[in-house]
């Protein structure tokens, strides 16, 4: 098993006919994902790289039975595209777009509230369940199927973690980038809850960043509700306060959101927190050793 996407996922690509949409729809299909079509307003009725194009998400869903959508649409219209997908009842909406105005995202999240759709992102690399399906831009060739779940605010740092695991022979159930914006759909806690309930996931890697309190909230959740071993890393230990480090959310302000606070909170919750990003893979391997009876046993029991 995996979380959120698997071989049965029927994926739609919003913004299919753009440069990024074209490239990543092809990548996803070649990886084995069932890509059922795309949406570009005004280009409905045509086909693009062999995929049928629709004017609206609603008509696309009706025609294809899509249950997931990945968005490669420009930032000025991305929040609207998220709402359109939610209104059409798409269960999983993955928004890759970077640079969406915060107020647009605030309104889109309010629109999603009370609806059944789950949003991943925005400003994220999406997700991949190795050897099954992918929605987003995580390179398939660095992944392998296995038993570690990854949830991260970052893009390339996630690839780094995946690469370390794969090199050590540790495959992944699902790798999920939740995005580095101040306002996002799926949180660390949502992802941890899914991994905890997934029979095949035996350990989880959590990669956070400075800014906000999502990692502290995740720590409280892990302490209360996660029995599987968790390995954590927080990027930005050396970042100066008041400077935004690339991601709109990655800023230490008002003395809040420092790496030290996040690392302490996670450690106190039983997470193996590594200081160096190069130690993520080895730390997971150590937590998965057979003699770590607690972690592995708990991982097995939780699925019963």
């Amino acid at each position, binding site marked *: 098993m995996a979380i959120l996407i698997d071989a049965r996922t029927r994926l739609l690509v919003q913004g299919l006919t753009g440069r990024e949409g074209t490239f990543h729809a092809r990548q996803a299909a070649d990886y084995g994902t069932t890509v059922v079509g795309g949406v570009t307003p005004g280009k409905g009725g045509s086909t693009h790289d062999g995929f049928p194009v629709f004017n609206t998400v609603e008509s696309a869903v009706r025609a294809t039975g899509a249950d997931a959508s990945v968005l490669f649409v420009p*930032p*000025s219209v991305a929040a609207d595209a998220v709402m359109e997908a939610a209104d059409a009842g798409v269960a999983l909406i993955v928004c890759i777009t970077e*640079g*969406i*105005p*915060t*107020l*647009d995202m*605030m*309104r889109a*999240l*309010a629109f999603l509230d009370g609806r059944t759709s789950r949003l991943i992102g925005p400003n994220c*690399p999406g997700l991949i369940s190795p050897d099954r399906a992918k929605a987003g*831009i*995580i*390179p398939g*060739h*660095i992944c392998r199927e296995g038993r570690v779940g990854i949830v*991260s*605010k*970052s*893009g*390339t*740092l*996630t*690839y*780094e973690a995946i*690469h370390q695991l794969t090199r050590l022979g540790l495959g992944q159930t699902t790798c999920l980038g939740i995005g*580095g914006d*101040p*306002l996002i759909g799926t949180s660390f806690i949502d992802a941890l809850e899914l991994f905890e309930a997934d029979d095949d996931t035996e350990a989880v890697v959590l*990669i956070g*960043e*400075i800014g*906000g*309190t*999502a990692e502290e*909230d995740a720590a409280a959740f892990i302490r209360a509700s996660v029995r599987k071993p968790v390995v954590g*890393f927080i*990027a*930005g*230990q*050396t*970042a*100066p306060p008041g*400077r935004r*480090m*690339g*991601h*709109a*959310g*990655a800023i230490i302000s*008002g*003395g809040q959101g420092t*790496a030290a606070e996040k690392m302490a909170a996670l450690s106190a919750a039983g997470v193996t927190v590594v*200081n*160096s*990003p*190069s*130690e993520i893979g080895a730390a997971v391997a150590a937590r998965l050793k057979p003699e770590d009876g607690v972690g592995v046993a708990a991982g097995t029991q939780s699925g019963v």
Partner: protein
Amino acid sequence: MKIHEYQAKALLTRYGVTTPRGAPVFSAAEAAEATERLGAGRVVVKAQIHAGGRGKGGGVKVADDPATAARIAGEMIGMTLVTVQTGPAGRVVSRVLIEEGLDIATELYLGLLIDRAEQKPLFMASAAGGMDIEQVAADTPELIHKVHIDPGLGLAAFQARGLAEAIGLTGVPARKAAALMERVYAAFLAVDASMIEINPLVVTGAGDVLALDAKVTLDDNASFRHADLADLRDLAEEEPLEIEASKHELNYIRLDGTIGCMVNGAGLAMATMDIIKLAGGEPANFLDVGGGASAEQIKSAFQILLSDSKVKAVLINIFGGILRCDILAEGVIAAVTQLGVDVPVVIRMEGTNVDEGKRMIKESGLKCSTADSMGEAADVVVGLAAGA
């Protein structure tokens, strides 16, 4: 984007928020004229820089006549103002705000931003105005009153009235403060602000309510729909290398260390800074070349890195996803050959087309070290920087 106090006040005034009468000036002569125009009486001369704590740093002074205002303005303009927020280097003052002096009875605090956890706007108000609000929040959090705003409905009148009462206002000032809050919220939405802070909000002896200071930060992601606000940007407040980087769509932040870093992705860039520090070095910058950088951008990035004379060695850490390692190699080779790089370079690349990238670097005959892991790369570059 940060803007100056006088710009923030002009913006807020557009949405009906009352602020003191005043004008920005760039010289002593203009200061005298502005003081004349405000009529008889006391004025306040306020240095305009993008940092708080100006009062304690000597950036806010009062004058009782045009000649004094001119003298003070003349001293302030051109001075380097050091405050708790500027760092030791300080900021050069290029303009001051001349504003009418007020008969202040009460100083209050108002703040409006998006609460990330609640995913809603959060209005904060406190009777402890005029002070460092972060200190108030840390020491006496009960003095800060908070109201979350429904994104669909906006700030309800009862919420504004409630905040006004919570900070001790009654009667006419309470009504005026509540109305002001609604206007601040309207401005927040209209200009796509990420933060508005009014500290202090004052009640005068006559019962008027005004924003005596104002800080507005604009959401850069929304700049595409606010072309009219673009000229509020003051490039003099920004680091020249950061301005140059932004022209090439590179995300660069200058720091104090000796090891220049070039990385793709913000998280990996921060992690690279961290691992340099763990290896005993200090990063000279944060530089994210982005997911799909071109060879040309890589070259520009290199140029920016090397413009910092503190840089003793460079670490390139690229995990190729969309950005292919061969494109990176092409950019690095072009940069090193054309720019004449005289500091050691360590390259760690992984991911898409890594073998091709490594082959290109090797065949180019560039004198640079390669590393297979981030840890190894950091150790090597720190050693090279120390030896340089």
